[in-house]
């Protein structure tokens, strides 16, 4: 409970349904002050709904939402959206088309503070000094996002929520604009929640990542933890390419078609049948007598590296990431070895969803 003051947002057991279909099913989430948290989920996972519950556009059915220690919605009573002081940046920025850039950023301020000096100051924060008299239609995608952020930050909110701010942008501009926007948020030490469906985006920009699926938070933590120690095989696949091979755990290792694989000490299983998750970069191509024999099925060349799908005995196919120098064709014979520590999970039927159990 000593963490109360440092939590900018605390969501507890939040449930929300639309027309009898449950979109949020007991969501628990804590966002520490000063950090950027990515809320990662596929479309339909409920991430936008969660965001709208936090802003107050939707009422929750059960659970509670607190912002900076103050109760916002306890599922019976709620604070109106305009009284929550939560910054909100919708997908397209949603700049007011009838106002110029300067009037957009001071929209939320009291009338006497909507001066051009204030406008300039706010725009300077996001690197858009001198843009106050521009029309919103003349801005580029990244500029629009930055104006939207300046507008939200003008009120000094406890928390700023960004709803897929980069989803609508061209792939070529995306990284650049993302760095621009994230740079601004970091320089202002803002507490932010970034909603995204892009795992690469979540892992690369956020301090913490929360994965939402079917209305539940599956795992929450620093990006490295989520990638290296996912809570389940499905989750592992969702956060990047992953090989899942069946094996048998004996102490600190697992016996698999790939041979003996060292297991992560945190792997939550007892001895017996397990499923081992190995990232493509945790496998390598080696020369005899190391590794096990495998037949190349597919080879993809990416320039900076190459991905090769190989089959290791009785139909077990895995992907290996390796140096791009090796040119391989389907049918070639290679040798594969596990070079990292794998995560092991209780053996189960192959499921495509992310549920860890």
């Amino acid at each position, binding site marked *: *409970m000593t963490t109360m003051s440092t939590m900018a947002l605390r969501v507890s057991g939040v449930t929300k349904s639309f027309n009898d279909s449950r979109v949020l099913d007991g969501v628990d989430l804590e966002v520490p002050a000063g950090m950027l948290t990515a809320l990662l989920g596929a479309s339909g996972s409920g991430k936008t709904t969660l965001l709208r519950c936090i802003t107050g556009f939707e009422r929750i059915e059960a659970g509670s939402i607190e912002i900076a220690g103050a109760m916002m*919605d306890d599922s019976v009573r709620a604070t109106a959206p*305009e009284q929550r002081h939560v*910054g909100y940046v919708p997908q397209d920025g*949603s700049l007011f088309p009838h106002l110029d850039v300067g009037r957009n950023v001071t*929209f939320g301020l009291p009338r006497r503070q909507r001066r051009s000096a204030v406008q300039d100051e706010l725009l300077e924060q996001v690197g858009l000094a001198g843009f106050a008299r521009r029309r919103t239609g003349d801005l580029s995608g990244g500029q629009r996002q930055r104006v939207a952020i300046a*507008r939200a930050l003008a009120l000094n909110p406890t928390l700023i929520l960004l709803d897929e701010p980069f989803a609508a942008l061209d792939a070529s501009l995306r990284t650049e604009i993302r760095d621009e926007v994230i740079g601004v948020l970091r320089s202002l030490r803002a507490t932010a929640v970034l909603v995204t469906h892009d795992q690469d985006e979540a892992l690369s920009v956020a301090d913490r990542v929360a994965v939402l699926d079917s209305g539940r938070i599956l795992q929450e933590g620093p990006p490295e933890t989520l990638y290296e120690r996912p809570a389940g095989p499905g989750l592992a696949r969702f956060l990047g390419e992953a090989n899942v091979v069946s094996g048998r755990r004996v102490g600190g290792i697992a016996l698999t078609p790939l041979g003996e694989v060292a297991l992560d000490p945190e792997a939550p299983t007892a001895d017996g049948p397990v499923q081992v998750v190995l990232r493509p970069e945790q496998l390598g191509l080696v020369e005899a007598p190391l590794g096990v024999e495998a037949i190349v099925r597919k080879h993809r060349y990416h320039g900076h590296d190459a991905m090769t799908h190989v089959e290791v005995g009785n139909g077990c196919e895995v992907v290996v990431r390796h140096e791009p120098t090796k040119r391989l064709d389907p049918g070639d014979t290679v040798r594969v070895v596990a070079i990292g520590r794998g995560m092991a999970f209780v053996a189960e039927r192959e499921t495509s969803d992310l549920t860890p159990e």
Partner: protein
Amino acid sequence: MTSTIDRVERNSQKEIRPLRRAPRRDAWTVGAWIVAIIVAAPLAFLGIEAFQAGWASLSGVLFRGITATLMANTIEMMVLVTAAAAFLGVGAAWILERTDVPARRALTVLLIVPAAIPDFIETFGWVNALPWLRGLFGAVVVLSLAVYPFVMLPAAAALRRIDHRHEEVARNLGASRISVVFRVTVPEIRGAIAGGCLLVALQLLAEYGSFQMLGFRTFTTEIYSAFQVGFDTQSACALSIVLVIMSALLVGGEATVARREGSLVTSEVTTPARMALGRWRWPALGILALLVTAALCVPVGSILSLLIDPEPATLPGGSLFGAVGYSLIYALAAAALATAGALTVALGSRRSRSWLTRTPVRVALIPLAVPGLVGALALSYVAARYAGGRWYQTSALLVVAYAVMFLPLALIGIRASLVQVPESLTEVAASLGSSRISQLVRVILPLILPGLAAGFALVFLSTMTELAATLVLVPTGVQTLATQFWTYQTNIAYGQAAPYALAMIVLAGPPLLLLTKMGESGGGSNR
């Protein structure tokens, strides 16, 4: 990582920042329902009256020989005029939008103008010029020329909007120019054509003045004389119900055509190439010039000639100035009231999409299918029956009647412009601390101003030129332009009627100008 907060702590939080029970129901939705009830009430009462009269007495009216004649007359006239208007409207739109006919801009404006002139004024001009023009033939000629702009406008807009590449593909597949027009272009804009034809047909069902002047008997002329001359409420009521049912069938039929329509709007609008007419340029110009002459020059010229060469006055002169004043005041008040009501309904349906928010919109659109005469009769009936006659023939009731009748016109425009204000904009405003009222004033209203202005202008125009409802509901002793004109016209004092006719045409100018401006800036939609 799950944090459970105990009860005590939660309660202490409540004290720090008291929560309030946020309204689950939008205040605008409540307003929308109130407006919808006001709109629907008179018709509901009309239905109740008919029901109370009983089937026996109703069928007595409905199965008289005259009813069958009226039905035949009305349908025959409606089909002929709508077909002629569709031919003229689509043809003119195609020439204007897809060929290099000279003087396109001027022709476009001149061809739209008849839309703003009341049909009964145009009929007046024609009857004055050619007194032998009567009956079905007269009705078809005069009204086709009066209503074709209502097909031309949506057809032209659709022609500008459709994806031109479809036509190019058809040409590439071996279709000739002419065959492309009939196999690709016209089918692609059939939704717009159907919408225009619906407007025309509804207008024809509701028209009273023109048919009265042309001596052509339809439901409206019969209802009016049953009510005003024979004081036969029961007949008027029974015939009104038939008329409303016919209108409702039309609206339903159009909805099914429109629903089957494919996607008209494309993301990439290509500039359609205009067909080079070559030596047909001047004949094409001639055709359009002939249409302008017949639809505009003949009726307006005929009225002007009455002014230049006045006959001796046979009736005591009314005050033109007073009539203009009353017409303006009524039209402005009705436009303000209808716009406010339509705005409430539109805002009420903006957020969630449940039956609770949709119903008021549907109800508020009903008057589109209710002829003005019937609406006025229903209101006067309600006033006489339930308000002890206190409100009957008062200015307040007249303005409410206008506002209810023309509310759909404002609603359509406002809803179209409200689409351009995504919910995310008002949500952002809320997240920035704006209250509901402040969101309306600072975000919504500035953005939908063009739609509001168009709606206001359209209601103003319609009110100014409404005849039948005004005749029923106008307060005793008050003369508007339409009623004073009608008084003179009925008594064949054409010379004295002419200034009032001209005043109506002139006053229609400013709102028409505003509407065409809105149309050009692409703000309004035709439906």
